[in-house]
């Protein structure tokens, strides 16, 4: 979520309530004999407020499931999640009087810290990464389609080499692999477009380049190590290969360079996507655990 002026109201509200809660806490800690504790009325009030703030933050997930209910837009809930979730931390700290307490409360406090920190990190990532992705990945697709796109690009590369060299490239079962991946084998190029084998100098070299450099990269584009995995490396590689090739083959090399570039973009998109959403793998399960343990803590505290 972009952190911009639209958050101003929420931010000021959070700051105000934190300040107010701090003032109350200071007065409460000075005036309470034996110091502040969680089981006093004021301490319990902080705990209750913190509990409801966390509960509200947790309801974001449920809100997403009920699209048809017009109970506030999801962006409103998201802002609430962000700011009230953060506000819950000082409330809980005031509730606990800055002490970790027993084993259960220690776990709860640790969880809360991790969740808030991961949430802040996530918010910052979601503020910054979309812009980076937009700038760096011009050929974006939905992430679920990326593996299929990789297979399509492999097919395109196969067909480009086939057209440029007159024969289907000898590439260790590549044709079958493509057919298995996308259910459609590379198509035989139109005879009018094909450069027959022997018509252009360097067709052998192009086939070798495809087999030894391009294909391994296209097959495992996420593996680091290929010269084609970086933009600079790819430019150097293609500039080197094109030297000595018949000008008739230059278009094919250019096409292959574009295919590799698109593949690189897809890999980049996946990386950025993982960064953008990866933190949720930590944030969501821990949040759920926190909610459960919070209830356990409340029951135990009230019972005993």
């Amino acid at each position, binding site marked *: 979520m972009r952190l911009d002026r639209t958050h101003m109201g929420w931010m000021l509200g959070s700051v105000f309530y934190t300040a107010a809660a701090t003032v109350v806490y200071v007065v409460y800690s000075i005036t309470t004999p034996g110091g502040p504790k969680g089981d006093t009325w004021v301490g319990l009030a902080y705990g209750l407020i913190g509990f409801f703030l966390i509960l509200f933050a947790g309801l974001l997930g449920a809100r997403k499931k009920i699209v048809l209910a017009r109970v506030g837009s*999801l962006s409103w809930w998201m802002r609430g999640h962000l700011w009230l979730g953060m506000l819950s931390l000082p409330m809980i700290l005031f509730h606990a009087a800055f002490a970790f307490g027993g084993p259960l409360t220690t776990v709860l406090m640790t969880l809360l810290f991790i969740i808030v920190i991961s949430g802040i990190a996530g918010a910052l990532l979601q503020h910054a990464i979309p812009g980076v992705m937009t700038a760096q990945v011009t050929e974006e697709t939905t992430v679920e389609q990326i593996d299929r796109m990789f297979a399509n690009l492999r097919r395109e590369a196969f067909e480009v080499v086939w057209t440029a060299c007159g024969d289907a490239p000898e590439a260790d079962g590549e044709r079958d692999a493509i057919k298995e991946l996308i259910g459609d084998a590379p198509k035989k190029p139109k005879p009018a477009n094909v450069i027959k084998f022997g018509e252009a100098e360097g067709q052998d070299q192009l086939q070798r380049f495809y087999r030894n450099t391009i294909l391994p990269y296209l097959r495992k584009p996420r593996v680091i190590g290929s010269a084609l995995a970086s933009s600079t490396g790819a430019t150097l590689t293609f500039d080197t290969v094109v030297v000595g090739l018949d000008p008739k083959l230059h278009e094919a090399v250019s096409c292959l360079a574009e295919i590799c570039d698109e593949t690189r973009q897809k890999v980049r998109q996946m990386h950025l996507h993982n960064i953008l959403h990866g933190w949720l793998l930590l944030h969501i399960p821990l949040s759920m655990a926190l909610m459960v343990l919070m209830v356990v803590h409340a029951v135990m505290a009230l019972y005993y």
Partner: protein
Amino acid sequence: MAKDVAADQPREKLDIRPGDAEMPFAQLTRIGVFAGLSKKAESKLKGKGGDRAVVLRRFRKGDIICRQGDPGWTAFYILRTDDLLNLCAAKFEAATAADESLVTAAPELAALDPLVKRERAEELEQSSDAELICQLQASADRPDPAEVEALRDKMLAEQAAASADVKLGEIDPSFVGLGADAKRARANDVEAEKPELADLLRRSADGMDHRAKALVSLTIHRKGEEAPPSGGTVARLMRGFFRSRKARVAKSTGPRFIPIDGPVDLNYEDPIARLYEGELFGEMSCINYFPRSATVRAAQDCYMIEMLRNVLETLLDNETFKAEMDRVYRERVLANHLRSIPLFADAPDDVLEKLRTQVDLVTKQPGEVIFDEGEPSDSVYVIRIGTVKVYRKAAGGERVLAYRSRGEMIGEMGLIDGEPRNATCAAYEHPRGEKKARSGTPAAYSARIELVRIGVDLFKEICRDYPQFKQQVESVARERADEDTLRDEKITAHYSGRVDALGLMQGQKLMLIDLERCTRCDECVRACVDTHDDGVTRLLREGPRFGKFLIPATCRQCLDPVCMIGCPVGSIHKGATGDIVIEDWCIGCSICAQQCPYEAITMQDVAGKKAVVCDQCSSTNDGVPSCVYACPHDAAIRTDAATFFSEHLTVK
């Protein structure tokens, strides 16, 4: 089952199935509606298909004549009993002449049994003696006298029923438009007081039953009957809760009649109707290669003429035929068309009756202007067949305001406010010869437009007789004037070449995703899926970029909604809030999907193949589309492109 691809393509000649017969020109002209065709028309009638451009088909009771959604390129004319008698007479004459020739040419064959003659004709198929083969076939085709006698009896019964119809029309013209069941019900009502009238009504109803040769029906995948809902338990529960309200909305705005490619419109609640002898159906399929708009099944054993486009065109130029079709339309469909226009929805029966009998039926050729901007307003039109383009002259060409099709009204504004025409209306003409690369099928070709013209005097008379009508007219005038003002404001917005290239200015509710805000969480797509009972998304988060915005593939509610052109069953139209609506009687022909330049309409398997388009979540409480409402990052917006870009773009 593998589909026969070749069967989907128009052919140059029709096939002959068992029980069918070719129709030589001499026999064809014995049929009433073909009578009066000049010899000159013969070559045009044959076309590339030779004698096989028109075929006499025999259907048994229950046979499917054509099926809803199937490709179609022929029209059918249901033969009358007197046509059949004439054909029998022609065959009888041909058989007599053939017998006389055979006695001279091949006396040993003349006395043979008809079946044997047919076998011999088949044996001689490879020989060069074509004349002998023809003589043998003609002789073998001699009609069965018993069959001819039965036809003659049937015709007498029909004549009696026809005389009852005439008398009924004289007693009360409103009886003419009633169906057989309604006539019987009326007969029961008046039995005690007017036994003679009851008898007439019953005879007329019986005659209708005799003349009803086919049943035309439409399968409607009504809302709520779609695929099982998708999503999690909570989502399903919530959908169930909100569905009842959506269903109410859908029901209240539902249409009364569905236009089909035939001489009758179908009632939405009971989409089945009768086709009578002497009627033509499949005209739009034949002319435009539209898929069949409904399923037609033989209600009793009957004969039909199936014809290719060249034959139909010849027929439509024939005055006798045209007059007959106009009569049928006036009797069976016109009242429904008028009733489905909001202005006439609550009009009393006598007003509709007056209109039905006094309006003019007019025909316009493709591209022909119906009326021009600035002309004095002297009439309103209801579209009977075809598509009309409504446009205004603008700098650098024309600006399309709307496309109107069967059952809609044009030209009422001028009569309402007494001003000259404020737009030009022309019979819509597709660019000829273009092929759609995606489908490989021919683009829809233009065809003539048929209109119902209500003259200014008649219009004023109705306003005088029916005050409520006048009030409605004034209300419509105000709405249209507001729409026009809004549209004119939009037209003045400035835009760059890229905006134009992407067609962004078309968008009245263009969806934009701010990519610097969007975290690619796909909540918008999930919201779309959850909002619709069929579990199909109307939004694909893919498309071209414009600056930091993604233009996803979803309906943008175009100013020029070309997707609406050519729907064979009129199931695509604008909803109450301007959203594009595809009704549940869509036959899945994909013409709208092919016409949409932005790939916003997709074909989905939703209780049968059906076109699916974004409805802007028009059934939600606040009118905010779910995709926008569900975006947690305020990245998705729906906006009027003209306003948005005039505010955000620097004018150069």
